[in-house]
């Protein structure tokens, strides 16, 4: 089959590789009909996440048709059309029982590696380095889906791939980001990053009843999309001082909820801060450039919530813990527990409450994945989201 392989920093190729096989009784093989490039794939592309190996198959947002089933999967049949959540979860451990699917205790066979870096291991993730399992990803013609009796959601034919594909990751991730802010009517929510996850966070904050939603980014075309998603205010951080602007919007209070949908590769208009983090990351004394998170903490109102859904890898510097502690802030975070949100968000799409297709800017054949990665990374051609068709 053809698959998108990571061949080194800033280098992906689409090549012929062996088909996946059933390895466990609870596996399914899915013929991929649509897959997407995620913002967190860019961290792999850029070489920010350790333990990638040359030849690893990328992609954790994919859907398709079940073509083969292990003996242990009773709830699916061959021919079913399914969306596949990016966290691999067993459904049986304490974490899964509590609905914390992205910290499933059984799905990362390389848990030891992750424990060294993070103390404990999260779940396994498709195409997302060996630290989280070394599972081949879904930017391919076929993908193996472990614990297929727990993860995939069957979808009806009345919805297109494009309408349901983002249930695999960015929609639930954005939704969880907003949900963690415990939005009450009248709340002001600020979202750092108007990429796909940020846009879904904006849309979800709107669905959850936020009164004002501020989107923060440096690309006007992304901020335009944020308005489309429901942002009432947009800030281009290269043009305005974000902290001042948020104080202005909230008459000095600060937003009730601050969502970091940017993560470890954020940039900062002040070159000195940027240079500091770049220097520290270059010598491995820090792995992040956490500008957005620092700003989100500083901006948040006293007693407010900072919700982190942007991806981080390891260690950060200059964390404003004093601000966090002295001002009674709450931090909530996590990789999305996608399984929890699949059914309810699917219903929202079916009910027409949201149409996730609004953020797709490019649809490419799988063979053009390398162009897709470059375009998405370099924000060329007003690229917001690339869908690949194997």
């Amino acid at each position, binding site marked *: 089959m053809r698959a998108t392989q990571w061949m080194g920093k800033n280098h992906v190729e689409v*090549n*012929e*590789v*062996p088909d*996946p*096989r*059933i*390895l*466990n*009784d*609870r*596996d399914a093989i899915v013929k991929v009909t649509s897959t997407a490039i995620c913002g967190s794939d860019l961290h792999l592309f850029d070489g920010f996440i350790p333990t990638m*190996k*040359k*030849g*690893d198959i990328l992609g954790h947002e994919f859907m398709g048709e079940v073509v083969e089933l*292990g003996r*242990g999967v009773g709830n699916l049949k061959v021919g079913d059309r399914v969306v596949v959540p990016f966290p691999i979860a*067993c*459904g*049986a*451990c*304490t974490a899964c*029982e509590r609905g914390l699917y992205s910290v499933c*205790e*059984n*799905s*990362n*066979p*390389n*848990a*030891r590696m992750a424990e060294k870096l993070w103390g404990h291991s999260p779940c*396994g993730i498709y195409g997302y380095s*060996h630290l989280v*399992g*070394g*599972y*081949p990803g879904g930017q391919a013609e076929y993908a*193996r889906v*472990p*614990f297929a009796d727990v993860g995939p959601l069957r979808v009806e034919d009345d919805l297109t791939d494009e309408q349901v594909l983002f249930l695999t990751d960015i929609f639930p991730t954005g939704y969880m980001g907003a949900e963690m802010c415990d939005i009450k009517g009248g709340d002001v929510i600020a979202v750092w990053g108007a990429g796909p996850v940020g846009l879904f966070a904006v849309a979800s904050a709107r669905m959850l009843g936020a009164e004002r939603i501020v989107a923060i980014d440096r690309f006007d075309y992304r901020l335009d999309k944020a308005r489309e998603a429901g942002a009432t205010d947009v800030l281009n951080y290269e043009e305005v001082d974000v902290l001042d602007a948020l104080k202005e919007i909230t008459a000095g209070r600060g937003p009730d909820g601050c969502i970091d949908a940017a993560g470890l590769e954020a940039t900062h208009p002040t070159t000195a801060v940027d240079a500091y983090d770049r220097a520290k990351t270059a010598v491995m004394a820090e792995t992040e450039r956490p500008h957005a998170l620092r700003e989100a903490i500083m901006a948040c109102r006293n007693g407010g919530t900072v919700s982190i859904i942007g991806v981080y890898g390891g260690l950060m510097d200059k964390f404003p813990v004093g601000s966090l502690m002295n001002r009674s802030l709450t931090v909530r975070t996590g990789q999305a527990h996608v399984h929890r949100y699949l059914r309810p968000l699917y219903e929202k799409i079916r009910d027409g409450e949201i149409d996730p297709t609004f953020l797709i800017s490019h649809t490419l054949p799988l063979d053009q994945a390398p162009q897709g990665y470059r375009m998405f990374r370099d924000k060329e051609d007003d690229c917001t989201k690339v869908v690949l068709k194997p």
Partner: protein
Amino acid sequence: MSSRSASPGLRRTARVLGLASTGLGVAMLRNPVGVARASGVDDSPTALSVIPVVGARELLHALPLLAGRPGWAWTRIAGDAMDLTAMGVALAHRSGDRRRRLRAATVAVGGLAALDLLTAARSRRRGPARDLLPGSAPWKGAIDVSAATTVNKTPEQVYRYWRDFSRLPDFMAHVREVRTLDDGQRSHWVAEAPGRRTVEWDAELVEDRPGELIRWRSLPGAGIENAGSVEFRPAPGRQGTEVRVRLAYAQPGGRLGKVVAGLFGESPEQQVRDDLTRSKQVLETGQVVRSEGSPEGPLAARLTHQRPATARS
């Protein structure tokens, strides 16, 4: 340089030595003149060229010691011996104030050397494997490892799973087969050894408390003398069962010694923890969880080497 993990106290001592080594090394590299003066050898032209070299050596020792590996104190002892010899020679040729300074420095180095010797010697000592083995002499050079996990099942369920020894090969990487012998108290074990060979032994139950504890030990005449225990306790907050495993293997000499070393690889602790993780997977999900890409291998070749869905890796 023992592969066994050292006690926390010993590791702390190793780190103190590492810190001392670092301090000395840095001082010698950055300010050889000052060091020469303080130790009373500033009149020797060779001292200035030797001191930075000794400093570099100190830094070399420092790294593993700072990582808490007491066995590396042995490498310091060799250095200490060299230093003390050189200082003794120098002492014979000094007088007055220089001699006093040199004597103080020699006493300091001697003190450090004593601590090095003590630490190194303690790193050789084994863990308390003997309490696993009622009535038997302590084993020389035993591998003694433990690991723990929490399983989302009741202690009775976990106990029942472990008590059926024939299922242990499902998750124990090196155990190929365990057969329970007629009386149920004894079992026959077959383990894989490097070079497609196998090692076999008989074991007996030493203690069996349903839902709480299983202890076993090898019977006399075993190729590899070993003993183990697994303990089950309800986890607080109804989070299932805490499972604690302890294993001890005697390391015989000669050919068998090599086999045992290969059996447990670089890190016996790691292997036992991996075995235990797999046992949790089997108990909770019914299978050992596999991924194509782990742990090793390049390009597509890795995918063609996928292993089948049966247990063990």
